[in-house]
């Protein structure tokens, strides 16, 4: 691809080796939005220009996305792809790792029965779910979505659980009084396309 072109040739698309700036930007947009590698023929077909033009534009983009930049243009699997520069992958991982993870369904189930019935004992959660919920309650305590709020005054004095402020935050609720009621579920979900 040994083209050593600089951007000042851009305004002269008529000149051999020149290419309209919009073509370069179009390819940039396509590579950005795609995520996956795209080959020159496909780019030429979508933008409806000769493949030769795509090659010139790619060379210009390679100058733009090169050494030292956060995003680089690489040749991958017979196509072109914009990728984060390898040097920054630890940072990218730090960003990804900080994302809250999806809660598994059993945890959501336990959370729902505590949320609407609180304070609640483990036995009560077990009865609603029909399975032993002990380990899941422990996970939710670890995650900070549940807390022990006291003991029930009944035989065995079982622990009582309540939801925490972190629970409210993750569901975007200002307070427990904002929990929708069962009748409100019906109100809003009255389905009608």
């Amino acid at each position, binding site marked *: 691809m040994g083209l050593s072109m600089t951007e000042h040739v851009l305004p002269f698309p008529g000149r051999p080796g020149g290419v309209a700036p919009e073509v370069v930007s179009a390819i940039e947009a396509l590579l950005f939005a795609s995520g996956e590698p795209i080959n020159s023929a496909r780019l030429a077909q979508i933008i409806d220009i000769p493949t030769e033009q795509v090659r010139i534009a790619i060379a210009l983009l390679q100058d733009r996305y090169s050494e030292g930049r956060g995003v680089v243009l690489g040749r991958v699997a017979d196509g072109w792809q914009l990728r984060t520069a390898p040097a920054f992958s630890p940072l990218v991982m730090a960003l990804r790792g900080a994302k809250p993870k999806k809660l598994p*369904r059993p945890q959501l189930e336990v959370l729902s029965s505590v949320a609407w019935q609180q304070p609640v004992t483990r036995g009560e959660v077990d009865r609603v779910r029909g399975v032993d919920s002990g380990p899941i309650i422990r996970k939710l305590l670890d995650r900070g979505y549940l807390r022990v709020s006291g003991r029930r005054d009944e035989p065995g004095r079982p622990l009582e659980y309540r939801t925490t402020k972190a629970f409210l935050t993750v569901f975007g609720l200002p307070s427990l009084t904002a929990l*929708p009621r069962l009748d409100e579920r019906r109100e809003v979900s009255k389905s009608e396309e």
Partner: protein
Amino acid sequence: MEAAVSSGSASWTVHTDVFDGPLDLLLYLVKRDGVDVRKLDVRRVTDSYLAYLERMRDLNLSLAGDYLVMAATLVHLKSMELLPRLPTVLEEEEDPRDALARQLQEYERLRQAADFLDEQPRVGRDVYVRDPAVIDGSARIESGLDIFALLDLYANLLSARDAPEPIVSMVGDSGPDFRSCCEWVLRRLGGVGGRGELSQMLQSLHTRAERVVAFVAGLEMIKQHWLSVSQTGHLAAIDLVQLVDEDRIDLNNLTTWVEDGDSTPEDENGPLDD
């Protein structure tokens, strides 16, 4: 839906799905007739509105009740104009015509607002971002959870709790055993490639104990890679698919859960067979 109607000298094209309710229709008629929204000409707009409803009826188009309520309101306002003003009407009370005009203005502003939003370069329509899956739908799973989805889940738990317990309980009956529950799940799937939706399968069982053990049996077989599990979305139905032929499934190899180590052969087609 669109219908062209010819009536007398006027030819109409009725876009029935253009109107998002009686206020939308009313606003359209007011503007079409060149009337100032702030000084509503009640008689004129009532006549236009009723004529429009009439045409809709001629086309056999069903009208939502909201349209008829508005028609009644308009007829009432028109009748008030035709009658001499009653002295009992309090001076301070707002003229209902002004109230309607105000409502229309407010609705007009709402439409302006909607136009503004519609003109913004929108992700998925005008602009694209990386990994668009993060933006629509699944965004809530990542950055916050949907409280109504949680409520739905809770409501389902409550209704499942109403599952009838067995009427007859035999002394010494230790409940459903793990092995026969595995076999029941496999029978329901019916061979390699067989599919089943987990919650539907479990609902066909009569007791909660059976459901629980069958559920765990399913999980164990997923762990053994005998079944695959998939879910199309957050809280969506859970589909099981049998991956391995029954000949290659050795239930004796399952050590999880089988605490007493023996299964009762006479139970194999027993209580779980519905």
